[in-house]
C-alpha cells in the first residue's frame, strides 16, 4: 500500500535516501540544501540507517571525498546548492570522467552575485557540460521519485556516470505538499545492491584511477564518455518504465501537458511548470490551444524528441530560469532552438528569461506569454535576442 504523507521536497529526498541507505555521504551545509545532510545525520544518530556521513570542510572536499568513496566501491551521494556546486566544479568533471555513479541531490539556487539564496537554475545549468546526467523535478513527488530512480540509471553498466537530481530551491525544497511514498521494501528491491565491477577495495584486483593521459588517449576517453551519456537516454526510459510498474507514476524524458493539439507551447523546467499548467487549464476553457513541454531530463538532452513533440506548434516560448550572459538568451533556448532548426520545425520562437533569484512566476505571467505567442504566431517575432518576464522595466 502506498503511503500518503505530507512533506517538503528536502524531506521527501531525505526519505528516499533513508530507504536506499547508501554507503557514504560527504556533505557541507549550504542553503537551501542544508536540511538534507541534517536529516541524514539524524537518521544515523537514531540508528535508522548506517550510512557513513563525512562532515567535510567544503564542497570541493565533499565531491572529492565522494570520488574517493565511489572509486573505493561505495554507493555514494552528496547534496548541495548554488556556490557549493560551483565550488565542486573542477571535480564534477573528474567524477564523470572517472565514470563514477555518484548521486547528487541538487537544490537549485542562483549563483552569486549578488548573493541570494533563492531559486534559479544557474548552478546546475553552469554544470551542464560537466558530464553529469541531470534530471529535474517539478514538485516534491517528482523529487522523491527521481531520487529513487537515480542509482538505477547511474550504475547501469552502459552508463556509469554521476547523476544530479535537481529540485527548485525553497519553492520545492521547503514547501510542504501531499506526496505518495513507496514502501521501504519496494524501494530497496527496486534500487538493489551496488556491485561495482572494478573498485579500489577489490581484494582480487587492484585499480588505478585518475591517470595522466596524453592526447593520444584523451580524445578516445571523451568519446567513450559521450557514448555513455547517449546510452543514458534509453536507460532512463527503461528505468522509468519499471518504476511505473511499481508505482503507477509515469515518467519520460519530458512531460507533455495538453501539448498534442497545442498551437502555443511553453517549454520550461522545474516548479514553474505547475504554474504553467494552471494557466493552460484556464486558457483551454476559453478555447485557447495552449500546451506545455516540461523538460525532465536535460542531460542527456532529448533535442530531437522534444522538437518532434513540438512539431505542430505555431509558436513556442522557451523559458530559462537562468541568465547565461551570452547576450542571446539562456541555455535551454540555445539548445532547444538548435534542435528545432535541425528538425525543420516551423514555429515562431520566443526566448524568455524568468524567475531569477526566486522572482515569482505567476499564472498571469504565463497567460501573458500565451497571449504573446498568439501574437508572434501571426505577426512574427520582432525582437532580436530574447526577453525578460517579471522584471521591472
Amino acid at each position: 500500500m502506498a503511503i500518503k504523507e505530507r512533506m517538503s521536497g528536502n524531506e521527501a529526498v531525505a526519505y528516499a535516501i533513508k530507504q536506499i541507505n547508501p554507503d557514504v555521504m560527504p556533505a557541507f551545509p549550504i542553503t537551501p540544501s542544508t536540511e538534507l545532510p541534517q536529516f541524514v545525520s539524524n537518521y544515523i544518530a537514531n540508528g535508522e540507517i548506517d550510512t557513513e556521513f563525512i562532515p567535510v570542510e567544503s564542497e570541493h572536499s565533499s565531491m572529492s571525498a565522494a570520488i574517493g568513496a565511489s572509486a573505493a566501491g561505495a554507493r555514494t551521494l552528496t547534496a548541495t546548492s548554488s556556490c557549493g556546486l560551483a565550488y565542486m566544479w573542477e571535480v564534477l568533471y573528474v567524477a564523470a570522467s572517472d565514470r563514477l555513479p555518484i548521486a547528487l541531490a541538487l537544490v537549485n539556487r542562483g549563483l552569486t552575485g549578488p548573493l541570494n539564496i533563492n531559486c534559479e537554475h544557474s548552478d546546475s545549468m553552469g554544470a551542464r557540460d560537466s558530464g553529469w546526467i541531470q534530471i529535474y523535478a517539478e514538485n516534491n513527488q517528482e523529487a522523491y521519485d527521481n531520487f529513487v530512480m537515480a542509482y538505477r540509471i547511474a550504475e547501469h553498466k552502459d552508463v556509469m556516470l554521476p547523476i544530479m537530481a535537481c529540485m527548485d530551491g525553497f519553492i520545492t525544497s521547503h514547501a510542504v505538499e501531499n506526496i505518495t511514498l513507496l514502501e521501504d521494501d519496494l524501494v530497496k528491491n527496486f534500487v538493489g545492491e551496488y556491485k561495482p565491477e572494478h573498485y579500489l577495495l577489490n581484494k582480487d584486483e587492484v585499480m588505478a584511477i585518475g591517470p595522466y593521459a596524453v592526447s593520444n588517449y584523451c580524445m578516445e576517453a571523451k568519446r567513450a564518455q559521450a557514448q555513455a551519456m547517449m546510452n543514458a537516454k534509453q536507460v532512463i526510459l527503461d528505468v522509468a518504465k519499471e518504476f511505473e510498474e511499481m508505482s503507477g507514476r509515469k515518467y519520460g524524458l519530458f512531460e507533455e501537458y495538453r501539448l498534442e493539439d497545442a498551437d502555443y507551447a511553453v517549454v520550461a523546467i522545474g516548479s514553474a511548470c505547475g504554474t504553467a499548467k494552471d494557466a493552460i487549464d484556464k486558457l483551454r476553457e476559453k478555447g485557447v490551444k495552449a500546451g506545455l513541454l516540461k523538460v525532465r531530463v536535460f542531460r542527456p538532452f532529448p533535442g530531437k524528441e522534444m522538437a518532434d513533440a513540438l512539431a505542430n506548434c505555431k509558436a513556442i516560448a522557451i523559458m530559462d530560469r537562468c541568465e547565461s550572459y551570452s547576450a542571446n538568451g539562456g541555455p535551454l533556448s540555445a539548445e532547444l532552438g538548435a534542435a528545432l532548426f535541425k528538425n525543420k520545425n516551423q514555429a515562431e520562437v520566443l526566448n524568455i528569461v524568468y524567475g531569477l533569484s526566486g522572482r515569482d512566476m505567476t499564472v498571469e505571467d504565463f497567460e501573458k506569454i500565451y497571449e504573446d505567442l498568439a501574437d508572434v504566431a501571426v505577426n512574427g517575432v520582432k525582437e532580436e535576442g530574447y526577453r525578460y518576464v517579471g522584471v521591472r522595466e
Partner: protein
Amino acid sequence: MMENKFNFKEIQERPERLAPGHRMCAGCGGTIAVRNVLKAIHPGDKAVVGNATGCLEVSSFTYPYNSYEDSYIHSAFENAGATLAGAETAYKALQKRGKIKENYKFITFGGDGGTYDIGLQSLSGAMERGHDMVYVCYDNGAYMNTGIQRSSATPMYADTTTTPAGTQSNGKPQVRKDLVAVMAAHNIPYTAQTTFIGNLKDLYVKSEKAIYTEGPAFLNIMAPCPRGWRFEAADMAEICKLAVETCYWPLFEVENGKWIINYEPKNKLPIEDFLKKQGRFKHLFKKGNEDLIVQFQEEVDRRWEELKVKANA
C-alpha cells in the same frame, strides 16, 4: 600499534610497492620518499595509495602504465586529503556491512605545492575529522612539476622561476611556512619530519609509525629535487645529510602531543655548507650578500631553538 624491530636487510628484500618504469626525473628525491614509505606497509597488508596532481602523479600513472602494486587514486591537485578520506570512509562503511574482510591502509602523497598551499584546507579537514590515514608531503620546496615556481615551502632567498634572483631581488623574500607545527596543532596522534639519512631508518620507522598509528598521521619528508635545487643527483645523500647537520631540516616527531627531537648534531654545521651545494642559492655567495646568509642562519637558529624548547617542555 604494532612496532616491529627495524630489520634493514629484511625490509630491502620486501617486494617493491612502487614499480620501476615511472617517468620521474633521473635522481628524483620524491620517488625515494614514496618507495620507502610504501616499504613500511607490512607484507600481507593491502593499501590504497592516493596522490595529489604533481610530478609524481603524471609520472607514475601515465596511461596505460601504472607504477603501483596497490590500488591507486588521483583526482586533482588540491584534494588528496579529501579524496583519500572518502576512500577510507568507504572502507569503514563496507567493512561494517561485511563486504570487506582484508586489512587496508590508506596513504596519500602530495608535493609541497599540493600540501602547504592549494591542498591545505582539504588536508586540514581530513586530519581534523580523524580519518585513519597517512598524508605524506614530499617536500622539494617549490612547484617542480610546472617548472620550479615558489611555494610557501620554498626557503627564504631561494631562486625560483617566480622569485628569480636579479638586480632588484634576492630570491624569495619570505621564510618557509612551518607546516609540521600547523599539523601538530591539529592534535592528531602522529606528525613527523624526516629525510634521507644513513640507511633510512628514520624514514622507515616514522612511516611505519604513521601507517600503523590508528587515526590520522602526517609525514613531512624533505625530498630534494636535483633539477630545481640545481645540484648533481649523485650528491643526494650529501645534501640531505647537510640539511640535518646544519639543523635546516631537523628530524623530529610529535607523538600524542609530545615533541621529540630524533637527532641533535654534535657540531651544528654553518648553513653555508648546505646552501653552497645548490645552484638556487648561488647569488647568496656573491660579494656584498654576506648579510643574507647571516639572516638565513638566524632563521635556522631561531627555529631550531624554538623546536628545542617544544621538545624539552
